[in-house]
């Protein structure tokens, strides 16, 4: 599919989501600015609690944002009326992390895939809808005789295929994949990753791929955003990020991944400290407490993403 390289499909400006918790205000997503180009795949990496799933839900307006704008094809979807949003919803879908809990256990595979079609009244005729459902099942590699099975009768990989079919039923342009393979075994994980990549090529989809697994995101995404405690700390093309990570957190993250090889010259290093909660955070770098290069004069100032050339953006006062 022909796509303009600079055609931006999804864009966020100063996106924030705060939650009130008993200890104060949790800055789950704090001032995130991203752009996703049509037909591209933006990977969002981070550890638990970094706000990556919240970000995905904000982008689809599944939860209301505290502040900021989300543009889809140039339209700020946070300002749309509910009716207009419903009309737009088929264009943006989500694949969920856990194929065990995100499928209603009382619905058959057929009904599960039919649901998005029925909800949006795509087909008037039952037969036409059934045809489309079988087409979708073929597309995601689910044998047709599973149509009357229930989710608990299938294995994790097949269940995730149902999730993919549901997300694709309405021909979306943009799909948020929220850790779609982290609940699956390695060999099944590879099958689903291949499927997602094939479907992207075939249907010209745009993905935002949320994951904690760096090797997965390196494999599937062209661009990668690294998140830490609600903020995006580094944004670069996949090749650039893995070749030349700039932010100390990205470096630490890369060094911590165990590589399945013996002959790597790579030093396996460990950073100290734990991921905390961004509750009423002070201005300045949120990684400072774990960082070896902490410099109070420079790191305690508010940090923002700055371009270091080639579109490699990093939010670190020390990366000069």
């Amino acid at each position, binding site marked *: 599919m022909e796509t303009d390289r600079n055609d931006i499909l999804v864009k966020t400006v100063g996106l924030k989501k705060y939650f009130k918790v008993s200890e104060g205000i949790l800055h789950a997503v704090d001032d995130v600015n991203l752009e996703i180009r049509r037909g591209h795949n933006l990977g969002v990496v981070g550890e638990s609690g970094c706000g990556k799933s919240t970000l995905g839900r904000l982008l*689809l307006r*599944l939860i209301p944002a505290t502040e900021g704008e989300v543009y889809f094809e140039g339209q700020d979807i946070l300002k749309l009326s509910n009716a207009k949003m*419903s009309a737009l*919803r*088929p264009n943006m*879908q*989500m694949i*969920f992390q*856990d194929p065990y*809990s*995100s*499928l*209603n*256990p*009382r*619905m*058959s595979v*057929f*009904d599960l895939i039919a*649901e*998005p079609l029925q*909800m*949006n009244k795509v087909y008037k005729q*039952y*037969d036409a809808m*059934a*045809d489309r459902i*079988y087409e979708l*099942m073929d597309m995601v590699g689910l*044998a*047709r*005789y*599973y*149509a*009357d*099975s*229930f989710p*608990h009768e299938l294995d994790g990989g097949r269940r995730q295929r149902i*999730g993919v079919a*549901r997300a694709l039923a*309405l021909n979306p342009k943009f799909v948020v994949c929220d850790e779609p393979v982290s609940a699956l075994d390695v060999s099944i994980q590879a099958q689903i990753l291949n499927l997602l990549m094939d479907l992207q090529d075939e249907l010209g989809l745009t993905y935002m791929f949320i994951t904690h697994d760096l090797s997965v995101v390196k494999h599937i995404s062209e661009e990668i955003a690294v998140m830490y405690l609600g903020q995006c700390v580094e944004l670069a093309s996949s090749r650039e990020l893995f070749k030349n990570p700039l932010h100390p957190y990205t470096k630490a993250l890369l060094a911590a991944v165990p590589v399945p090889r013996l002959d790597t010259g790579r030093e396996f290093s460990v950073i100290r400290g734990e991921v905390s909660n961004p509750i009423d955070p002070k201005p300045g770098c949120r990684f400072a407490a774990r960082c070896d290069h902490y410099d109070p004069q420079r790191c305690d100032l508010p940090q923002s993403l700055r371009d270091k050339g080639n579109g490699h953006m990093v939010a670190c006062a020390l990366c000069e």
Partner: protein
Amino acid sequence: MKKNAGNPERRRKRNAFINRDTWRRFKKNKASLVGLILFLIFVLFMIFADVIVPYSVAIENNISQRLQPPSAEHWFGTDAFGRDVLARIIHASRYSLLMGIVSVVIGIVCGSVLAAIAGLYGGIADRTIMLIMDTILCIPFMLLALAIVAALGSGLENLLMALVIASVPIYVRVIRSSILTVVESDFVEAARSLGTPDRWIVLKHILPNAIGTIIVQATMSVGTMITWAAALSYVGMGIQPPAPEWGAMLSEGKNYMLQYPYLVIFPGLAIVLCCLSLNLMGDGLRDALDPKLKD
């Protein structure tokens, strides 16, 4: 693995809620099966009471036959008015079962509606409903039921009303909590992301997943309602004589209990067996209705 092919014409829909697996799973629990059979026997007695023995035998006095011990003629003996105890127990099953079932059905429907409002919309609606329910739950059941019957006068309808009012809070609490777990589940969020309207979410996602709990709660409650009705009749606030009712029969028999124990043993046994059968059945239903419990 399913053998039926995937062609639309040949699709045979499997009911998501009750299908052949449900019965297979239910059968596995032998105690529940016994419960079901026992309950069916009571239901048969209820339906064919008039065929088995005329109603007149159960209510007309026959002083010459009073206080006969169990014999070939009167299997369960006769009471102080010479009425056949077996005939009275059989006809009493009509009142008792009917009262149990009807009060539970009305109660569950009211309870489900209130619970759905509380669970789905939360906030003020939730707090108000739960406050009222908790207040009602603070009043001991007997006291509340007696107060209602005393205020409205005794009689079948008023007894039913008292049972419903006193039991609704229990249903609301149970059903609300099961609705809350479903509302927060991932698949409801997934449905929302597809643009599914609220009413569809309630009908297709929340109710089918909460109804197992509701059915089990209902089955178990019928037994409780029967005992409560019996208790009210025992203190003279329920079914009025000479109409037969298990609790009322106990009450009538208590004066002769020491000399003629069968007068209380048989109605008591009827209450115990009926409740037991329903509770056993409820246990089995709970397991049978959960699609994720395979074996």
